[in-house]
């Protein structure tokens, strides 16, 4: 099983990295952007996806400061295509 773990700074915790990106975008003409947060993406093949939450709690994230979301997929290919589907019009 191919899985992705999306790791985000917990809501309410100061995220200077997100703020820096948010300030940089208007400088390039990208106005109207708010609430930027920068997290981390972990991709992994795993035999027993049922153990993913425990992996997230014990190592992949620090639950005190980060939230996570597990996105499972049958294969890496379908992850790629679903990411494409979320971003229509993106040229590759």
């Amino acid at each position, binding site marked *: 099983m191919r899985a992705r773990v999306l790791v985000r700074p917990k809501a309410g*915790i*100061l995220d*200077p*990295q997100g703020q*820096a990106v948010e300030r940089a975008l208007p400088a390039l003409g990208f106005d109207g952007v708010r609430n930027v947060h920068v997290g981390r993406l972990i991709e992994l093949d795993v035999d027993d996806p049922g153990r993913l939450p425990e992996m997230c709690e014990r*190592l*992949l994230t*620090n639950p*005190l*400061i980060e939230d996570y979301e597990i996105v499972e997929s049958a294969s890496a290919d379908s992850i790629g295509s679903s990411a494409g589907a979320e971003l229509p019009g993106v040229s590759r």
Partner: protein
Amino acid sequence: MKFGVVRFPGSCDDIDALQAAARVGDAVLLWHADHDLQGVDAVIVPGGFSYGDYLRPGAIARFAPVMAEVEEFGREGGLVLGICNGFQVLCEAGLLPGALLPNVSLKFVFRQVEVEVVSTTGPFTGACGVADRLSIPVKHTTGRYYAPEAELDRLEAAGQVLLRYAPGHNPNGSLRDVAGVCNERGNVFGLMPHPEHAVDPLGGSTDGLRIFESMRAHVEQHVLA
């Protein structure tokens, strides 16, 4: 009085910590892959970039074989001091409350700061006076102390905040200027400033020695006596 300094792959302040401890007692290095604390009276988890700081600082190191011994030693009341990366390791291991986040500036900071002693009742600051100012360097990128507001209230009420950055000296955006906290029992202490770099007049300050002297006095009075 025998100090043990843990050496992980990527530790870089282990020798300074060893030499600082050797000014007040005996000191040996403890190898990360050994399940052996060599009968030490206190453990120091030093600064550096243990296991490359991959994933999060301290996240991998907390699972090192020697950390199982350090955790047991701490549970039994042994003194454990975590400095900088060692502080991050102890937070990741759950031996200390809270977490260290990237500096608000997003920059590496390396400067001498003044910290105020908040509490002197425990083993790590007994040789200091309340409100004493210690001049000690910091050098880190991930040193912003964070705990939820309710937890910060609880830590302050319980006297677990031992050191605060003096007004105007907070180098990283730590909540409530926390520079160092101990566990509920008081025998595990972590701080971002580097007391082992402030032990010789040549370095501009010897204030850091007082942390090591406090530990020695505690062990001599309560453990070896």
